[in-house]
């Protein structure tokens, strides 16, 4: 197998606050191949956004990437780079787009200036050249009348156009990896599809890999090659998108799937996963999902499950992998029994 573009292994990002340690990302490993789309899925608090920021090394104190972690990107260990070498990579080889395009754009600079700025930071292009590249990139990002739009300020644009600007800003230097943190969550449903389509088109055109962070399984089904499901700062299931979505193994993934409203099955109430993600300062012993799980038994309280191989390129962090009969005996999860006091 060829070397992956990015190999994250045993990534641990902890936040130290006085005596308490929040283990937001706690031993995460995954690879991204060139040109591939990997979706990281999980609910709020699962550690997916911290993982994204960790890759760019944008974690700020009191947060810290713990020493044993490793992130190999294009053959280089990102954690061994100096801050200025890391700046060379940000925006140039690895770019990021944010969830909320209004707040991620500077309100007092024109959008053209903000895109040209990226070019000026990383190349010795003149002001004029940078501006021309910004306009060219805006056009590639599907902006109509890019030359006029470039001189406008973010507040003059609609949400969808702002997200196109964010994409233009991220891709103007043709990065090898794009990290997209919930790129469509803040947009209207009709615009979401356009933006996803645009991302896919540009991804093919530029041959870049995309790390898509989302909680929307519909988006995953549409664009992802592989899925990494995160829960409690850990990877709980990985596999190809087709496998994981069609035959989820981990009870958490199962829960996420059934929590998705479907058009073809009328239900009285939407299904939810009871309880909330436990605080990252005190992960439960054993399995971190056990209190919310319909299958949890004694073993789940004492033994922290490893990632079991449950199929070809399919791994799951659930003891059911070795005791499959447990799936036949669902019960009401602990979190649902103690009620809503969590």
């Amino acid at each position: 197998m060829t070397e992956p573009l990015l190999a994250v292994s045993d990534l641990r990002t902890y936040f130290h606050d006085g005596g308490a340690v929040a283990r937001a990302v706690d031993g995460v490993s995954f690879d991204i191949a060139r040109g591939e789309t990997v979706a990281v899925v999980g609910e709020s608090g699962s550690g997916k956004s911290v993982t994204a920021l960790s890759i760019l090394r944008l974690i700020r104190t009191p947060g810290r990437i713990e020493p044993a972690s490793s992130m190999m990107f294009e053959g280089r260990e990102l954690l061994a780079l100096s801050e200025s070498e890391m700046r060379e990579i940000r925006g140039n080889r690895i770019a990021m787009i944010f969830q909320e395009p209004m707040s991620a754009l500077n309100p007092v600079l024109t959008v053209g200036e903000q895109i040209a700025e990226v070019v000026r930071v990383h190349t010795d292009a003149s002001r004029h050249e940078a501006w021309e590249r910004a306009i060219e990139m805006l056009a590639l990002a599907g902006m109509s009348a890019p030359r006029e739009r470039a001189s406008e300020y973010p507040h003059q644009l609609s949400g969808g156009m702002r997200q196109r600007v964010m994409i233009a800003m991220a891709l103007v230097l043709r990065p090898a990896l794009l990290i997209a943190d919930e790129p469509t969550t803040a947009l209207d449903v009709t615009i979401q599809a356009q933006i996803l389509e645009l991302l896919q088109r540009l991804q093919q055109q530029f041959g870049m890999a995309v790390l898509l962070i989302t909680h929307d399984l519909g988006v995953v089904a549409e664009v992802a090659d592989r899925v990494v499901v995160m829960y409690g700062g850990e990877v709980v299931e990985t596999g190809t998108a087709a496998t994981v979505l069609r035959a989820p193994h981990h009870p958490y993934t199962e829960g996420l799937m059934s929590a998705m409203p479907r058009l073809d099955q009328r239900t009285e109430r939407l299904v939810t996963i009871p309880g909330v993600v436990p605080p990252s300062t005190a992960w439960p012993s054993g399995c971190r999902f056990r209190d919310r799980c319909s299958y949890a038994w004694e073993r789940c309280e004492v033994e922290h499950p490893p990632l079991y191989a449950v199929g070809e390129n399919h791994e799951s962090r659930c003891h059911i992998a070795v005791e499959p009969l447990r799936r036949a005996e669902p019960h009401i999860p602990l979190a649902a029994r103690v009620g809503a006091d969590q």
Partner: protein
Amino acid sequence: MATGVIVVMVIIALLAPLIAPSDPIAQPDIIGLKNLAPSLGHPFGTDSYSRDILSRCIYGARISLTVAALATAIAVTFGTLYGAIAGFVGGAVDTVLMRFVDAALAIPRVLLLIAILALWNGLPLWLLIVVLGATGWFGLSRMVRAQVLSLRELDFVAAARAVGATGPRILLRHILPNVLPTVIVAATLGIGHVIILEAGLSYLGLGVQPPSASWGSIIQDGADQIGTAWWISLFPGLLIVTTAIACNSLGDALRAAFDPRESAVMMAELDA
């Protein structure tokens, strides 16, 4: 209206030699022409050295406005950078820088100025400007710091980091332009304030030194004859009041135009 007043004052100051009816320091007839009441020949009257008050006021505008503008420019530049660095760097740097400002704000500005200026005998004008500037940035730096503290947490700063911009670049290119409205308002209000301060200092003999005249020092010239030759002090006094009010109302208008929500907080900070 306010803008109009300020523009007129600036034009008068710039064109002083063309507008002034006579030489502001000429003493044509110390005995015959002294302390003349306002008349057609001397609309503002003359002082005890027979100098034409109107001409002195016109030339005085140059000094008063120059001092105010330059001192404010120094204060605003320094205060903005100081506050921005404190807010952006944070941590121990922020603590040290801001404790110094707290300490400086504990001393009334006029007292501080009198204490510093009394050290010199025959103060050069540039030094007066520097001292006025150096004592005028504390409140602004605090305000800028507060804004930078909240701005640096915004997504667009994270986005700027994510495209590889350096710390100084983020501060200068992304954060400071967002602070600009505050700074402009503070500068406008500051000019009015410095005009009054300079007048007060000159009145105390600590400001502009004779024979050059600022509005404040002309008031001082007439102070001991206010009962008999009221016109010497009255006209420069009116000019000071008019200009200061114009600056303040322009500042208020700009503040309202930039952001109506901020005004209450800014008022409190600027008064500090």
